[in-house]
Protein backbone atom coordinates (compact mmCIF):
# COMPACT_ATOMS: atom_id res chain seq x y z
CA UNK A 1 0.00 0.00 0.00
CA UNK A 2 2.74 2.45 1.05
CA UNK A 3 6.34 2.26 -0.03
CA UNK A 4 9.15 4.68 0.79
CA UNK A 5 12.56 4.37 -0.88
CA UNK A 6 15.65 6.25 0.32
CA UNK A 7 13.67 9.15 1.76
CA UNK A 8 15.80 11.94 3.27
CA UNK A 9 15.13 15.38 4.71
CA UNK A 10 17.45 17.93 6.32
CA UNK A 11 16.65 21.15 8.14
CA UNK A 12 19.70 23.32 7.51
CA UNK A 13 22.54 21.21 8.85
CA UNK A 14 20.32 18.86 10.82
CA UNK A 15 19.62 15.54 9.11
CA UNK A 16 16.12 14.72 10.39
CA UNK A 17 15.44 11.71 8.13
CA UNK A 18 18.23 9.83 6.35
CA UNK A 19 17.62 7.33 3.54
CA UNK A 20 14.63 5.61 5.12
CA UNK A 21 13.09 2.60 3.35
CA UNK A 22 9.71 1.45 4.49
CA UNK A 23 6.82 -0.69 3.41
CA UNK A 24 3.28 -0.92 4.73
CA UNK A 25 1.22 -3.76 3.23
CA UNK A 26 -2.53 -3.33 2.80
CA UNK A 27 -4.52 -4.42 5.84
CA UNK A 28 -1.62 -4.28 8.27
CA UNK A 29 -1.02 -2.35 11.47
CA UNK A 30 2.58 -1.21 11.68
CA UNK A 31 4.45 1.08 14.01
CA UNK A 32 7.37 3.50 13.89
CA UNK A 33 9.22 3.95 17.18
CA UNK A 34 12.35 5.76 18.30
CA UNK A 35 13.65 8.18 20.91
CA UNK A 36 12.65 11.87 20.97
CA UNK A 37 13.85 13.76 17.94
CA UNK A 38 14.46 10.57 15.96
CA UNK A 39 12.60 11.97 12.93
CA UNK A 40 9.31 10.08 13.24
CA UNK A 41 7.00 13.07 12.87
CA UNK A 42 9.16 14.41 10.07
CA UNK A 43 8.78 11.08 8.27
CA UNK A 44 4.97 11.38 8.57
CA UNK A 45 5.09 14.94 7.28
CA UNK A 46 7.08 13.72 4.26
CA UNK A 47 4.63 10.91 3.52
CA UNK A 48 1.55 13.11 3.89
CA UNK A 49 2.89 15.95 1.75
CA UNK A 50 3.45 18.58 4.43
CA UNK A 51 7.17 18.40 3.65
CA UNK A 52 8.91 17.54 0.38
CA UNK A 53 11.81 15.05 0.63
CA UNK A 54 15.27 16.22 -0.41
CA UNK A 55 15.68 12.82 -2.07
CA UNK A 56 13.89 9.50 -2.34
CA UNK A 57 10.45 8.46 -3.60
CA UNK A 58 7.16 7.67 -1.90
CA UNK A 59 4.55 5.46 -3.56
CA UNK A 60 0.98 4.98 -2.43
CA UNK A 61 -1.21 2.22 -3.93
CA UNK A 62 1.13 2.07 -6.91
CA UNK A 63 1.30 5.82 -7.65
CA UNK A 64 4.23 8.10 -7.01
CA UNK A 65 2.98 10.78 -4.61
CA UNK A 66 6.36 12.37 -3.81
CA UNK A 67 6.01 16.14 -3.38
CA UNK A 68 2.24 16.24 -3.90
CA UNK A 69 0.18 18.64 -1.81
CA UNK A 70 -1.37 17.32 1.44
CA UNK A 71 -4.94 17.87 0.23
CA UNK A 72 -4.25 15.84 -2.94
CA UNK A 73 -2.71 13.01 -0.93
CA UNK A 74 -5.63 13.03 1.49
CA UNK A 75 -8.08 12.82 -1.41
CA UNK A 76 -6.18 9.71 -2.60
CA UNK A 77 -6.91 8.09 0.76
CA UNK A 78 -3.84 8.74 2.90
CA UNK A 79 -4.53 10.84 5.99
CA UNK A 80 -2.44 11.86 9.01
CA UNK A 81 -3.18 13.07 12.52
CA UNK A 82 -1.08 15.62 14.42
CA UNK A 83 1.03 14.78 17.44
CA UNK A 84 0.20 18.21 18.85
CA UNK A 85 -3.58 18.14 18.41
CA UNK A 86 -4.89 20.76 16.00
CA UNK A 87 -8.64 21.05 16.64
CA UNK A 88 -10.81 23.65 14.92
CA UNK A 89 -11.13 25.32 18.30
CA UNK A 90 -14.23 27.41 17.69
CA UNK A 91 -16.26 24.49 16.31
CA UNK A 92 -18.10 21.68 18.05
CA UNK A 93 -16.97 18.05 17.92
CA UNK A 94 -19.65 17.32 15.31
CA UNK A 95 -18.56 20.24 13.10
CA UNK A 96 -14.90 19.27 13.46
CA UNK A 97 -15.51 15.72 12.28
CA UNK A 98 -17.87 16.95 9.53
CA UNK A 99 -14.97 18.82 7.90
CA UNK A 100 -13.29 15.46 7.37
CA UNK A 101 -16.57 13.83 6.33
CA UNK A 102 -17.16 16.46 3.63
CA UNK A 103 -14.31 14.98 1.60
CA UNK A 104 -16.60 12.15 0.45
CA UNK A 105 -19.96 13.71 1.34
CA UNK A 106 -20.95 16.81 -0.59
CA UNK A 107 -24.20 17.58 1.25
CA UNK A 108 -24.16 19.04 4.74
CA UNK A 109 -26.81 16.63 6.03
CA UNK A 110 -24.94 13.56 4.84
CA UNK A 111 -21.59 14.86 6.14
CA UNK A 112 -23.13 15.52 9.57
CA UNK A 113 -24.65 12.03 9.64
CA UNK A 114 -21.33 10.44 8.74
CA UNK A 115 -19.58 12.61 11.35
CA UNK A 116 -21.97 11.42 14.02
CA UNK A 117 -21.38 7.77 13.18
CA UNK A 118 -17.60 8.22 13.21
CA UNK A 119 -17.67 10.14 16.50
CA UNK A 120 -19.65 7.32 18.07
CA UNK A 121 -17.10 4.81 16.79
CA UNK A 122 -14.22 6.54 18.60
CA UNK A 123 -16.24 7.10 21.78
CA UNK A 124 -17.13 10.78 21.30
CA UNK A 125 -20.82 10.06 20.73
CA UNK A 126 -21.91 11.90 23.88
CA UNK A 127 -19.82 15.01 23.19
CA UNK A 128 -21.04 15.91 19.73
CA UNK A 129 -22.14 19.44 20.65
CA UNK A 130 -19.21 20.26 22.91
CA UNK A 131 -16.84 22.98 21.65
CA UNK A 132 -13.50 21.42 20.69
CA UNK A 133 -11.50 23.79 22.89
CA UNK A 134 -13.26 22.49 26.00
CA UNK A 135 -12.21 18.86 25.49
CA UNK A 136 -9.81 16.97 27.76
CA UNK A 137 -6.48 15.78 26.36
CA UNK A 138 -7.84 12.28 25.89
CA UNK A 139 -10.90 13.56 24.02
CA UNK A 140 -8.76 15.80 21.81
CA UNK A 141 -6.72 12.78 20.77
CA UNK A 142 -9.92 10.97 19.87
CA UNK A 143 -11.09 13.99 17.91
CA UNK A 144 -7.88 13.91 15.85
CA UNK A 145 -8.55 10.26 15.13
CA UNK A 146 -12.23 10.85 14.32
CA UNK A 147 -11.60 13.71 11.90
CA UNK A 148 -9.00 11.72 10.00
CA UNK A 149 -11.18 8.60 9.93
CA UNK A 150 -14.12 10.62 8.62
CA UNK A 151 -12.26 11.13 5.33
CA UNK A 152 -12.71 7.37 4.66
CA UNK A 153 -8.98 6.73 4.24
CA UNK A 154 -7.22 3.64 2.93
CA UNK A 155 -4.18 4.39 5.11
CA UNK A 156 -4.28 6.13 8.47
CA UNK A 157 -1.10 7.69 9.93
CA UNK A 158 -1.47 8.14 13.69
CA UNK A 159 1.14 10.33 15.38
CA UNK A 160 1.18 9.48 19.12
CA UNK A 161 -2.58 9.36 19.65
CA UNK A 162 -1.96 7.63 22.99
CA UNK A 163 0.61 10.03 24.48
CA UNK A 164 -0.53 11.54 27.77
CA UNK A 165 -3.34 9.04 28.34
CA UNK A 166 -3.75 6.84 31.42
CA UNK A 167 -3.54 3.02 31.04
CA UNK A 168 -7.32 2.57 30.80
CA UNK A 169 -7.60 5.22 28.10
CA UNK A 170 -4.70 3.62 26.24
CA UNK A 171 -6.49 0.26 26.28
CA UNK A 172 -9.65 1.87 24.90
CA UNK A 173 -7.79 3.53 22.03
CA UNK A 174 -5.93 0.29 21.27
CA UNK A 175 -9.29 -1.46 20.93
CA UNK A 176 -10.68 1.33 18.76
CA UNK A 177 -7.69 1.29 16.41
CA UNK A 178 -7.86 -2.49 16.09
CA UNK A 179 -11.54 -2.29 15.19
CA UNK A 180 -10.86 0.41 12.60
CA UNK A 181 -8.59 -2.06 10.85
CA UNK A 182 -10.74 -5.17 11.39
CA UNK A 183 -14.18 -3.65 10.65
CA UNK A 184 -13.35 -0.93 8.14
CA UNK A 185 -10.30 -2.50 6.50
CA UNK A 186 -8.21 0.63 7.03
CA UNK A 187 -4.45 0.10 7.02
CA UNK A 188 -2.74 1.75 10.00
CA UNK A 189 0.74 3.13 10.53
CA UNK A 190 1.33 4.56 13.97
CA UNK A 191 4.03 6.41 15.84
CA UNK A 192 3.94 5.46 19.49
CA UNK A 193 6.03 5.81 22.63
CA UNK A 194 3.61 3.74 24.70
CA UNK A 195 5.27 0.34 24.35
CA UNK A 196 2.31 -1.55 25.78
CA UNK A 197 0.26 -0.28 22.82
CA UNK A 198 2.93 -1.05 20.22
CA UNK A 199 3.37 -4.59 21.58
CA UNK A 200 -0.33 -5.39 21.46
CA UNK A 201 -1.25 -3.63 18.21
CA UNK A 202 1.62 -3.64 15.75
CA UNK A 203 2.53 -6.61 13.61
CA UNK A 204 5.77 -5.02 12.52
CA UNK A 205 7.91 -2.21 13.92
CA UNK A 206 10.42 0.15 12.35
CA UNK A 207 12.94 1.76 14.70
CA UNK A 208 14.33 5.19 13.86
CA UNK A 209 17.30 6.76 15.59
CA UNK A 210 18.74 10.13 14.58
CA UNK A 211 16.88 9.92 11.29
CA UNK A 212 18.12 6.46 10.35
CA UNK A 213 16.23 3.17 10.37
CA UNK A 214 18.32 1.03 12.72
CA UNK A 215 16.13 -2.05 13.02
CA UNK A 216 12.83 -3.57 12.00
CA UNK A 217 10.84 -6.69 12.71
CA UNK A 218 8.16 -8.07 15.04
CA UNK A 219 7.68 -6.20 18.33
CA UNK A 220 9.21 -9.06 20.28
CA UNK A 221 12.31 -9.19 18.07
CA UNK A 222 12.70 -5.42 18.27
CA UNK A 223 12.49 -5.36 22.06
CA UNK A 224 15.30 -7.90 22.24
CA UNK A 225 17.51 -6.14 19.65
CA UNK A 226 20.62 -4.67 21.38
CA UNK A 227 20.84 -1.81 18.84
CA UNK A 228 17.36 -0.71 19.86
CA UNK A 229 18.11 -0.91 23.56
CA UNK A 230 21.22 1.21 22.95
CA UNK A 231 19.31 3.80 20.99
CA UNK A 232 16.94 4.24 23.88
CA UNK A 233 19.28 3.90 26.83
CA UNK A 234 22.56 5.17 25.48
CA UNK A 235 25.82 3.72 24.19
CA UNK A 236 26.94 0.52 25.90
CA UNK A 237 23.62 -0.01 27.62
CA UNK A 238 22.96 -3.35 25.96
CA UNK A 239 26.30 -4.86 26.97
CA UNK A 240 26.00 -3.42 30.46
CA UNK A 241 22.61 -5.07 30.77
CA UNK A 242 23.80 -8.48 29.55
CA UNK A 243 26.91 -8.02 31.73
CA UNK A 244 24.69 -7.38 34.72
CA UNK A 245 22.65 -10.45 33.79
CA UNK A 246 25.80 -12.59 33.69
CA UNK A 247 27.08 -11.41 37.04
Amino acid at each position, binding site marked *: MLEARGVSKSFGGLKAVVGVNMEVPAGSIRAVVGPNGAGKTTLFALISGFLTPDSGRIRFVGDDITGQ*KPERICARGLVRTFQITQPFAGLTVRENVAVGAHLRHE*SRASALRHAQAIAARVGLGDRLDQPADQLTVAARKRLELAR*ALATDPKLLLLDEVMAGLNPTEVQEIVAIVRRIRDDLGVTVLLIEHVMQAVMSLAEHVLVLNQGTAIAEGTPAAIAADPRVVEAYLGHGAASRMTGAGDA
Partner: protein
Amino acid sequence: MRTLAGIALFGLVMLPLPALLASQVWLNFLVMTLFFALLGIAWNVVGGYGGQFSFGHAAFFGTGAYCAAVLQAQLGLAAWLGFALAPVAGGAVAGVVGFLSFRYGLRGSYFALVTLAFAEVLRILANSAGFTGGGSGLLIKLAPGAANLQFADRSGFYYLVLALVIAGLLLSLWIERSRFGSYLVAVRENEDAARALGVDAFAIKLRAIVLSGAIAGVAGAVYAQMFLYVDPGLAFGPTMSVEALLVPIVGGMGTVFGPVLGSLALHLLSEAGRSVLGQAPGLNLALYGVLLVIMVLFLPDGLVGLLRRVRRRFLRGRADA
Protein backbone atom coordinates in the same frame (compact mmCIF):
# COMPACT_ATOMS: atom_id res chain seq x y z
CA MET B 1 -34.43 26.73 10.08
CA ARG B 2 -34.45 29.44 12.75
CA THR B 3 -32.09 31.61 10.75
CA LEU B 4 -34.25 31.28 7.65
CA ALA B 5 -37.28 32.31 9.71
CA GLY B 6 -35.23 35.25 11.00
CA ILE B 7 -34.49 36.39 7.46
CA ALA B 8 -38.19 36.12 6.55
CA LEU B 9 -39.13 38.11 9.64
CA PHE B 10 -36.52 40.73 8.81
CA GLY B 11 -38.03 41.11 5.32
CA LEU B 12 -41.57 41.32 6.67
CA VAL B 13 -40.65 44.02 9.18
CA MET B 14 -38.59 46.05 6.74
CA LEU B 15 -40.94 45.90 3.75
CA PRO B 16 -43.71 48.26 4.95
CA LEU B 17 -41.37 50.73 6.68
CA PRO B 18 -41.18 53.36 3.89
CA ALA B 19 -44.98 53.69 3.94
CA LEU B 20 -45.01 54.00 7.74
CA LEU B 21 -42.14 56.45 8.11
CA ALA B 22 -43.28 60.05 7.83
CA SER B 23 -39.80 61.55 7.68
CA GLN B 24 -37.41 61.37 4.71
CA VAL B 25 -34.54 61.70 7.18
CA TRP B 26 -35.34 58.34 8.73
CA LEU B 27 -35.88 56.71 5.36
CA ASN B 28 -32.51 58.03 4.30
CA PHE B 29 -30.99 56.66 7.49
CA LEU B 30 -32.43 53.21 6.76
CA VAL B 31 -31.22 53.24 3.15
CA MET B 32 -27.68 54.01 4.30
CA THR B 33 -27.89 51.44 7.09
CA LEU B 34 -28.95 48.77 4.61
CA PHE B 35 -26.28 49.89 2.18
CA PHE B 36 -23.51 49.50 4.78
CA ALA B 37 -25.02 46.18 5.86
CA LEU B 38 -24.57 45.01 2.26
CA LEU B 39 -20.94 46.14 2.29
CA GLY B 40 -20.47 44.38 5.63
CA ILE B 41 -22.04 41.20 4.27
CA ALA B 42 -19.44 41.32 1.49
CA TRP B 43 -16.54 41.64 3.94
CA ASN B 44 -18.02 38.99 6.25
CA VAL B 45 -17.66 36.27 3.58
CA VAL B 46 -13.88 36.38 3.43
CA GLY B 47 -13.16 38.18 6.72
CA GLY B 48 -15.79 36.70 9.03
CA TYR B 49 -16.21 33.16 7.75
CA GLY B 50 -12.74 32.92 6.20
CA GLY B 51 -10.72 34.80 8.82
CA GLN B 52 -8.82 36.76 6.14
CA PHE B 53 -8.90 40.35 7.39
CA SER B 54 -9.04 42.65 4.41
CA PHE B 55 -8.23 46.30 5.00
CA GLY B 56 -8.91 47.23 1.41
CA HIS B 57 -12.43 46.28 0.46
CA ALA B 58 -12.65 49.74 -1.12
CA ALA B 59 -10.67 48.19 -3.98
CA PHE B 60 -13.64 45.97 -4.88
CA PHE B 61 -16.30 48.47 -3.89
CA GLY B 62 -14.68 51.23 -5.94
CA THR B 63 -14.24 48.96 -8.95
CA GLY B 64 -17.98 48.26 -8.90
CA ALA B 65 -18.77 51.97 -8.52
CA TYR B 66 -16.50 52.95 -11.41
CA CYS B 67 -17.82 50.07 -13.52
CA ALA B 68 -21.35 51.50 -13.22
CA ALA B 69 -20.20 55.09 -13.71
CA VAL B 70 -17.82 54.57 -16.65
CA LEU B 71 -20.29 52.42 -18.57
CA GLN B 72 -22.99 55.08 -18.32
CA ALA B 73 -21.09 58.38 -18.29
CA GLN B 74 -18.30 57.52 -20.74
CA LEU B 75 -19.78 54.79 -22.95
CA GLY B 76 -23.44 55.78 -22.78
CA LEU B 77 -24.51 52.22 -21.96
CA ALA B 78 -27.60 51.24 -19.99
CA ALA B 79 -27.57 51.46 -16.21
CA TRP B 80 -28.58 47.83 -15.71
CA LEU B 81 -25.55 46.72 -17.75
CA GLY B 82 -23.21 48.58 -15.41
CA PHE B 83 -25.10 47.07 -12.51
CA ALA B 84 -24.78 43.56 -13.93
CA LEU B 85 -21.08 43.94 -14.68
CA ALA B 86 -20.14 45.52 -11.33
CA PRO B 87 -19.98 42.17 -9.47
CA VAL B 88 -17.94 40.68 -12.31
CA ALA B 89 -15.47 43.57 -12.13
CA GLY B 90 -15.34 43.57 -8.33
CA GLY B 91 -14.90 39.78 -8.29
CA ALA B 92 -12.15 39.95 -10.90
CA VAL B 93 -10.11 42.51 -8.95
CA ALA B 94 -10.65 40.44 -5.80
CA GLY B 95 -9.47 37.37 -7.71
CA VAL B 96 -6.20 39.10 -8.64
CA VAL B 97 -5.62 40.33 -5.07
CA GLY B 98 -6.51 36.93 -3.65
CA PHE B 99 -4.41 34.97 -6.12
CA LEU B 100 -1.31 37.03 -5.43
CA SER B 101 -1.63 37.12 -1.64
CA PHE B 102 -2.80 33.53 -1.07
CA ARG B 103 -0.37 32.03 -3.59
CA TYR B 104 2.46 33.56 -1.59
CA GLY B 105 0.92 32.46 1.68
CA LEU B 106 0.24 35.94 3.09
CA ARG B 107 -1.75 35.82 6.31
CA GLY B 108 -2.84 38.17 9.08
CA SER B 109 -1.45 41.67 8.94
CA TYR B 110 0.52 40.97 5.76
CA PHE B 111 -2.68 40.14 3.92
CA ALA B 112 -4.36 43.24 5.41
CA LEU B 113 -1.51 45.45 4.23
CA VAL B 114 -1.56 44.03 0.70
CA THR B 115 -5.30 44.66 0.34
CA LEU B 116 -4.83 48.20 1.69
CA ALA B 117 -2.05 48.78 -0.82
CA PHE B 118 -4.22 47.54 -3.71
CA ALA B 119 -6.98 49.99 -2.83
CA GLU B 120 -4.45 52.83 -2.70
CA VAL B 121 -2.94 51.86 -6.05
CA LEU B 122 -6.41 51.84 -7.61
CA ARG B 123 -7.15 55.24 -6.07
CA ILE B 124 -4.00 56.68 -7.63
CA LEU B 125 -4.77 55.05 -10.99
CA ALA B 126 -8.32 56.42 -10.96
CA ASN B 127 -6.87 59.82 -10.18
CA SER B 128 -4.58 59.82 -13.19
CA ALA B 129 -6.44 57.82 -15.86
CA GLY B 130 -8.53 59.62 -18.49
CA PHE B 131 -11.56 57.36 -18.75
CA THR B 132 -12.22 57.65 -15.00
CA GLY B 133 -12.45 61.42 -15.22
CA GLY B 134 -9.30 61.81 -13.10
CA GLY B 135 -9.45 63.63 -9.81
CA SER B 136 -12.69 65.44 -10.61
CA GLY B 137 -14.53 62.13 -10.91
CA LEU B 138 -17.52 61.13 -13.05
CA LEU B 139 -21.07 62.43 -13.06
CA ILE B 140 -23.88 60.14 -14.17
CA LYS B 141 -26.58 62.03 -16.04
CA LEU B 142 -29.72 62.56 -13.99
CA ALA B 143 -32.55 60.68 -15.68
CA PRO B 144 -35.04 59.40 -13.12
CA GLY B 145 -36.83 56.19 -14.01
CA ALA B 146 -36.61 52.59 -12.89
CA ALA B 147 -35.07 51.62 -16.26
CA ASN B 148 -32.10 53.88 -15.43
CA LEU B 149 -31.96 52.56 -11.85
CA GLN B 150 -32.63 56.06 -10.65
CA PHE B 151 -35.52 56.73 -8.35
CA ALA B 152 -37.04 60.14 -7.75
CA ASP B 153 -38.43 58.77 -4.52
CA ARG B 154 -35.94 57.50 -1.92
CA SER B 155 -38.10 54.45 -1.29
CA GLY B 156 -37.09 53.07 -4.70
CA PHE B 157 -33.52 52.72 -3.48
CA TYR B 158 -34.79 51.39 -0.20
CA TYR B 159 -36.47 48.42 -1.89
CA LEU B 160 -33.49 47.84 -4.18
CA VAL B 161 -30.99 47.74 -1.30
CA LEU B 162 -33.36 45.75 0.90
CA ALA B 163 -33.68 43.09 -1.82
CA LEU B 164 -29.89 42.95 -2.13
CA VAL B 165 -29.41 42.66 1.64
CA ILE B 166 -31.94 39.80 1.82
CA ALA B 167 -30.12 38.07 -1.03
CA GLY B 168 -26.87 38.60 0.91
CA LEU B 169 -28.38 37.10 4.07
CA LEU B 170 -29.60 34.06 2.12
CA LEU B 171 -26.13 33.68 0.62
CA SER B 172 -24.57 33.83 4.12
CA LEU B 173 -27.01 31.18 5.28
CA TRP B 174 -26.07 29.01 2.31
CA ILE B 175 -22.39 29.42 3.26
CA GLU B 176 -23.14 28.16 6.77
CA ARG B 177 -24.85 25.07 5.40
CA SER B 178 -22.58 24.09 2.56
CA ARG B 179 -19.35 22.17 2.13
CA PHE B 180 -17.74 25.39 0.90
CA GLY B 181 -18.65 27.17 4.15
CA SER B 182 -17.53 24.27 6.32
CA TYR B 183 -14.16 24.28 4.54
CA LEU B 184 -13.89 28.07 4.75
CA VAL B 185 -14.43 28.07 8.51
CA ALA B 186 -11.99 25.14 8.89
CA VAL B 187 -9.32 27.14 7.05
CA ARG B 188 -9.99 30.09 9.36
CA GLU B 189 -9.65 27.91 12.47
CA ASN B 190 -6.56 25.94 11.44
CA GLU B 191 -5.24 25.88 7.91
CA ASP B 192 -2.82 22.95 8.34
CA ALA B 193 -5.46 20.77 9.96
CA ALA B 194 -7.86 21.62 7.15
CA ARG B 195 -5.32 20.68 4.48
CA ALA B 196 -4.62 17.38 6.23
CA LEU B 197 -8.34 16.60 5.82
CA GLY B 198 -8.25 17.22 2.07
CA VAL B 199 -9.21 20.91 2.00
CA ASP B 200 -7.57 22.88 -0.81
CA ALA B 201 -7.08 25.99 1.36
CA PHE B 202 -5.82 28.13 -1.51
CA ALA B 203 -8.83 27.42 -3.72
CA ILE B 204 -11.27 27.94 -0.87
CA LYS B 205 -9.80 31.30 0.13
CA LEU B 206 -9.71 32.39 -3.49
CA ARG B 207 -13.37 31.51 -4.03
CA ALA B 208 -14.28 33.36 -0.83
CA ILE B 209 -12.51 36.57 -1.78
CA VAL B 210 -13.98 36.53 -5.30
CA LEU B 211 -17.48 36.11 -3.86
CA SER B 212 -16.79 38.85 -1.33
CA GLY B 213 -15.42 41.18 -4.02
CA ALA B 214 -18.43 40.54 -6.23
CA ILE B 215 -20.86 41.58 -3.48
CA ALA B 216 -18.72 44.64 -2.69
CA GLY B 217 -18.84 45.45 -6.41
CA VAL B 218 -22.65 45.39 -6.31
CA ALA B 219 -22.55 47.72 -3.31
CA GLY B 220 -20.33 50.04 -5.36
CA ALA B 221 -22.81 50.12 -8.24
CA VAL B 222 -25.64 50.88 -5.78
CA TYR B 223 -23.58 53.74 -4.41
CA ALA B 224 -22.94 55.17 -7.88
CA GLN B 225 -26.66 55.02 -8.70
CA MET B 226 -27.64 56.67 -5.42
CA PHE B 227 -25.30 59.65 -5.65
CA LEU B 228 -24.83 59.73 -9.46
CA TYR B 229 -21.24 60.67 -8.78
CA VAL B 230 -17.97 58.80 -8.21
CA ASP B 231 -14.50 60.12 -7.50
CA PRO B 232 -11.25 58.36 -6.52
CA GLY B 233 -11.45 59.30 -2.84
CA LEU B 234 -15.06 58.20 -2.41
CA ALA B 235 -14.59 54.96 -4.33
CA PHE B 236 -11.14 53.76 -3.26
CA GLY B 237 -10.43 55.82 -0.12
CA PRO B 238 -10.05 54.19 3.29
CA THR B 239 -13.54 55.16 4.53
CA MET B 240 -15.29 52.31 2.71
CA SER B 241 -12.58 49.82 3.72
CA VAL B 242 -13.04 50.74 7.37
CA GLU B 243 -16.86 50.65 7.19
CA ALA B 244 -16.75 47.27 5.45
CA LEU B 245 -14.80 45.63 8.26
CA LEU B 246 -16.18 47.55 11.23
CA VAL B 247 -19.81 46.66 10.46
CA PRO B 248 -19.36 42.87 10.82
CA ILE B 249 -16.83 43.23 13.65
CA VAL B 250 -19.34 45.22 15.68
CA GLY B 251 -22.26 42.99 14.73
CA GLY B 252 -20.54 39.61 14.93
CA MET B 253 -18.06 38.12 12.46
CA GLY B 254 -18.96 34.90 10.72
CA THR B 255 -22.66 35.18 11.55
CA VAL B 256 -25.60 35.73 9.20
CA PHE B 257 -27.11 38.74 10.98
CA GLY B 258 -23.88 40.30 12.29
CA PRO B 259 -23.51 42.82 9.44
CA VAL B 260 -27.13 44.01 9.71
CA LEU B 261 -26.93 44.47 13.48
CA GLY B 262 -23.50 46.06 13.23
CA SER B 263 -24.57 48.52 10.56
CA LEU B 264 -27.62 49.54 12.58
CA ALA B 265 -25.60 50.00 15.78
CA LEU B 266 -22.79 51.91 14.07
CA HIS B 267 -25.07 54.32 12.29
CA LEU B 268 -27.29 54.93 15.27
CA LEU B 269 -24.13 55.70 17.20
CA SER B 270 -22.71 57.99 14.54
CA GLU B 271 -26.05 59.86 14.24
CA ALA B 272 -26.11 60.25 18.02
CA GLY B 273 -22.50 61.43 18.00
CA ARG B 274 -23.32 63.99 15.36
CA SER B 275 -26.28 65.43 17.24
CA VAL B 276 -24.43 65.55 20.56
CA LEU B 277 -21.00 66.68 19.40
CA GLY B 278 -21.83 68.53 16.19
CA GLN B 279 -20.31 68.14 12.73
CA ALA B 280 -16.62 68.13 13.66
CA PRO B 281 -14.49 66.80 10.80
CA GLY B 282 -13.05 63.35 11.43
CA LEU B 283 -15.46 62.81 14.31
CA ASN B 284 -16.86 59.62 12.82
CA LEU B 285 -13.41 58.09 12.43
CA ALA B 286 -12.46 58.96 16.01
CA LEU B 287 -15.72 57.48 17.25
CA TYR B 288 -15.18 54.34 15.18
CA GLY B 289 -11.64 53.99 16.52
CA VAL B 290 -12.86 54.06 20.11
CA LEU B 291 -15.63 51.63 19.26
CA LEU B 292 -13.21 49.21 17.59
CA VAL B 293 -11.01 49.14 20.70
CA ILE B 294 -14.04 48.54 22.92
CA MET B 295 -15.30 45.73 20.69
CA VAL B 296 -11.94 43.98 20.55
CA LEU B 297 -11.45 44.25 24.31
CA PHE B 298 -14.93 43.45 25.60
CA LEU B 299 -17.04 41.96 22.80
CA PRO B 300 -14.81 40.01 20.45
CA ASP B 301 -17.80 38.08 19.13
CA GLY B 302 -19.83 41.21 18.50
CA LEU B 303 -23.45 42.03 19.21
CA VAL B 304 -24.64 38.63 17.99
CA GLY B 305 -22.34 37.01 20.55
CA LEU B 306 -23.66 39.32 23.25
CA LEU B 307 -27.28 38.48 22.37
CA ARG B 308 -26.50 34.76 22.43
CA ARG B 309 -24.96 35.04 25.89
CA VAL B 310 -27.87 37.07 27.22
CA ARG B 311 -30.35 34.54 25.84
CA ARG B 312 -28.42 31.62 27.33
CA ARG B 313 -28.34 33.32 30.72
CA PHE B 314 -32.05 34.08 30.43
CA LEU B 315 -32.88 30.46 29.56
CA ARG B 316 -30.72 29.18 32.39
CA GLY B 317 -32.34 31.62 34.81
CA ARG B 318 -35.75 30.33 33.80
CA ALA B 319 -34.64 26.71 34.18
CA ASP B 320 -33.32 27.44 37.69
CA ALA B 321 -36.51 29.18 38.77
